[in-house]
């Protein structure tokens, strides 16, 4: 009681049951009773759902009726609801920073199994919060203006949709794409499931809209090299690779391609998964955006090992004529862009089927990946839609193997979500194109989507054979005459209960989705996190699925996890909306956890200055003291911990607050 008077604070404490999430493992009333007796506490309650409206109103009412000047809520993680309760405290008429939150759900009730121990832990944590909150100070939220421009990284369907949404809302968008054209994986697909509308028909109009939209600056064949700054004010360095063609001067007439010294295309065509050939000067695919050619210095005769030799007669330049679009002297350039928000839509990589050697990809020419089949059935693909195998034959029997590089602890343990559906789509298309007998080998058929199960029904009716069993191996040796010269799949038909050997002309591997090879670099660059499988981590799996832990940076599409086109587009729209919400507010509210220097105590030793990664600390020569630029400080507190004279203070995390918290967690036995 004495302490109450001395500290002169009036703390209200609330412990949340969270239904049974907390109450099942923590004796909430007991904690409330324990806290009630602590110095400074004038009121201590337990309540079923603190985050609900009545819960928040309870706090507001108590602040007024009991003249509370400090509030502590013990409930879930502050990363989830700190904001909610600060707002409630503010609505109750207090400074929102006279509040502290205790995490007794994620850090207590959910991770422990002994109710007595969990309750004791909750008491200790609550005790610490009570001691800490008494030391809290009134703080002002810092408002900084937000730059209205947006950067979208990755020009697949997610990036295209996000960029279009933002641009249509009147924002200036930079869309950066690594390849010479936007379109991503979707541009390679033939049809889309379950509606079977053609991918190009729905994608290419969007692509050309992006290309001509006045609010979109399209930077293809470019990569983000660096990001600096903070939410609202990012500076991004974009590296523009030389395509040896001046974009503004190329009209896409493709005369250069026709007149290349190579009369026949003979180089690996990335867009067609190597099934077709292209020339050193090429346009990736007919509807590429921008309609600008690129020159591949690795194979162009005018280069040797990528170095310009000028040895070719350059018939392409002649063909280009007056347009003068070809420039062999082009160098890599860098460009700085200022934006307020960033949407990362870098997509996925398909699993390398060679990592599952027992299926013979790369060894048997007639084993294909699903993406190769997409090109093979595509009317604008390398065979103009005729399904012929690498040996020139048309397949009479085709086996499709699901889950290649998915649900397998030796490669990728996750389900790639799209393979069941696209395998069925390919089964349908292959049957349509070839009339072949088609077998689909699956572990579990996953069709959770609108119209997906109906699509499965349709395939069953079409007479595609579905066999439940993960294929053991694909081999080329025969046990019987009908297997001669065929690829043989050995599998247990788990539903019929027999091990079977089935001969096929063609085998298709439904490869799964993986994070991009450079996902870790991208993650570091944008200050994001990755989940254990390597996809970018969302801020909250349910409530903040397109946000990241870095304010102002959003993610959408398959860079966050395997997903299909409808989900990707929905997510891209969501990310755009989140970014818009931030921009249209006009300013960012920053957590006032910055540090400042106590002038009287600073001895001018300068030890803090090199520690700051944001160069927020400078030395004031006239005063012989360090000063911190509040606008640059991000509130890590590294300088605070290092100051030998203890003259730096971090708001919200000052020494006094933390020491009292330490004292508090140990005060209770």
């Amino acid at each position, binding site marked *: 009681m004495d302490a109450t008077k001395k500290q002169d604070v009036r703390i209200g404490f609330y412990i949340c049951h969270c239904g049974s999430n907390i109450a099942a493992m923590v004796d909430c009333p007991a904690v409330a009773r324990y806290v009630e007796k602590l110095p400074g506490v004038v009121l201590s309650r337990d309540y079923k759902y603190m985050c609900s409206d009545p819960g928040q109103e309870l706090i507001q009412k108590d602040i007024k009726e009991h003249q509370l000047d400090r509030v502590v809520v013990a409930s879930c993680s502050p990363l989830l609801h700190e904001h909610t309760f600060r707002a409630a405290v503010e609505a109750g008429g207090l400074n929102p920073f006279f509040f502290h939150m205790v995490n007794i759900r994620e850090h207590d009730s959910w991770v422990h199994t002994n109710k007595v121990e969990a309750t004791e832990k909750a008491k200790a944590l609550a005790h610490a919060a009570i001691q800490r909150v008494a030391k809290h100070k009134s703080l002002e939220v810092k408002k900084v203006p937000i730059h209205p421009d947006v950067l979208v990284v990755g020009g697949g369907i997610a990036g295209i949709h996000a960029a279009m949404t933002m641009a249509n809302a009147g924002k200036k968008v930079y869309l950066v794409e690594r390849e010479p054209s936007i379109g991503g994986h979707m541009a390679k697909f033939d049809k889309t499931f379950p509606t079977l509308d053609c991918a190009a028909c729905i994608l290419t109009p969007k692509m050309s809209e992006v290309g001509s939209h006045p609010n979109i600056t399209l930077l293809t064949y470019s990569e983000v090299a660096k990001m600096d700054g903070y939410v609202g004010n990012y500076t991004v360095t974009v590296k523009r690779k030389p395509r040896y063609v001046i974009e503004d001067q190329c009209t896409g007439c493709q005369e250069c391609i026709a007149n290349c010294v190579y009369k026949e295309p003979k180089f690996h065509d990335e867009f067609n998964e190597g099934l077709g050939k292209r020339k050193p000067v090429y346009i990736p695919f007919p509807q590429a955006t921008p309609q600008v050619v690129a020159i591949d210095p690795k194979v162009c005769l005018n280069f040797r090992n990528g170095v310009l030799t000028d040895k070719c007669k350059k018939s392409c330049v002649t063909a280009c004529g007056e347009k003068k679009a070809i420039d062999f002297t082009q160098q890599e350039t860098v460009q700085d862009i200022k934006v307020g928000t960033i949407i990362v839509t870098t997509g996925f990589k398909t699993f390398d089927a060679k990592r599952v050697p*027992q299926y013979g990809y790369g060894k048997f020419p007639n084993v294909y990946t699903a993406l190769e089949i997409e090109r093979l059935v595509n009317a604008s693909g390398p065979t103009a839609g005729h399904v012929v195998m690498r040996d020139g034959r048309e397949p009479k029997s085709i086996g499709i193997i699901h*889950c290649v590089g998915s*649900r*397998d*602890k*030796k490669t990728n343990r996750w389900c790639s979500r799209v393979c069941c559906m696209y395998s069925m789509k390919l089964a349908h298309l292959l049957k349509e194109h070839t009339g072949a007998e088609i077998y689909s080998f699956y*572990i*579990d058929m996953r069709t959770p989507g609108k119209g997906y199960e109906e699509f499965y029904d349709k395939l069953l009716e079409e007479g595609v054979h579905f066999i*439940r*069993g*993960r*294929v*053991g*191996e694909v081999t080329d040796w025969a046990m019987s005459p009908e297997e001669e010269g065929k690829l043989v799949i*050995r*599998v*247990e*038909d*788990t539903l019929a*209960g027999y*091990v079977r050997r089935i001969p096929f002309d063609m085998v298709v591997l439904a490869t799964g989705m993986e994070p991009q090879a450079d996902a870790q670099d991208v993650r570091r660059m944008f200050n994001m996190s990755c989940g254990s499988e390597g996809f970018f981590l969302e801020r909250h799996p349910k409530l903040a699925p397109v946000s990241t832990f870095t304010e102002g940076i959003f993610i959408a599409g398959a860079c966050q996890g395997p997903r299909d086109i409808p989900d990707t587009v929905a997510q891209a729209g969501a990310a755009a909306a989140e970014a818009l919400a931030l921009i249209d507010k006009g300013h960012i509210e920053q957590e006032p956890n910055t540090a400042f220097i106590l002038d009287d105590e600073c001895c001018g030793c300068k030890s803090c200055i090199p520690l700051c990664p944001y160069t927020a600390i400078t030395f004031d020569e006239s005063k012989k003291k360090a000063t911190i630029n509040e606008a640059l400080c991000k509130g890590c507190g590294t300088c605070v911990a290092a100051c030998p004279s203890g003259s730096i203070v971090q708001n919200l995390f000052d020494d006094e607050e933390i020491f009292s918290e330490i004292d508090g967690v140990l005060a209770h036995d």
Partner: protein
Amino acid sequence: MEITRTIKYEADRVKGFGDEVRSVPGCEQLQSCIQCGTCSGVCPLSIYMDYSPRQVMALVRSDFKNEVLRSHTIWLCASCYSCTVECPRQIRITDIMYELKQRAIHEGIYPKKFAIPVLAKEFYKMAYKYGRVTENVLAATMFLKTNWLAALGMWRLGLGLLKRGRFPLKVESIKRRDELDRMMRTVDRLNIDALHDEKKKITSHRVEAAT
């Protein structure tokens, strides 16, 4: 044709059997089986099995002890380890098969006159006794114990081996048999499986009760 009832009742299960197998080091992963059939798909002997390896996993997990220990499958496993390396859940199926073989021999409920368990036991005895194994003597013992008629069919092979000097007529043995003997007795004394054996006894009673 004889029609038999194939339904299984709760009484057909030996509850706890699955858990018991899973508690053996190396068999823990059993629980994560997704019944994909990869093991059967790669097993070179699955074509002769009464239950496929996948089914064995399911049966063990569901406590169908009698069915599993009586099955031919566990004895057809030639330990080629294909299933173990291919299993997408990294279940050490070969080791589980060994565990099941041990249990079957221990409880004596393997198919009688079935050569494989006999070979395993004779091998064990011979190695235990002499420290080494002389294959042809072992084979002869095995055939005499299971199917002496089959032994007659083997005379040609034996003769061939004899002619080629690959048929040692004396039983190989190590010099310090006593050493091995002492070590084995220590193991028996320590009997780390004491508890295990207790369990096995209890469950075997249950098997008897169930049969």
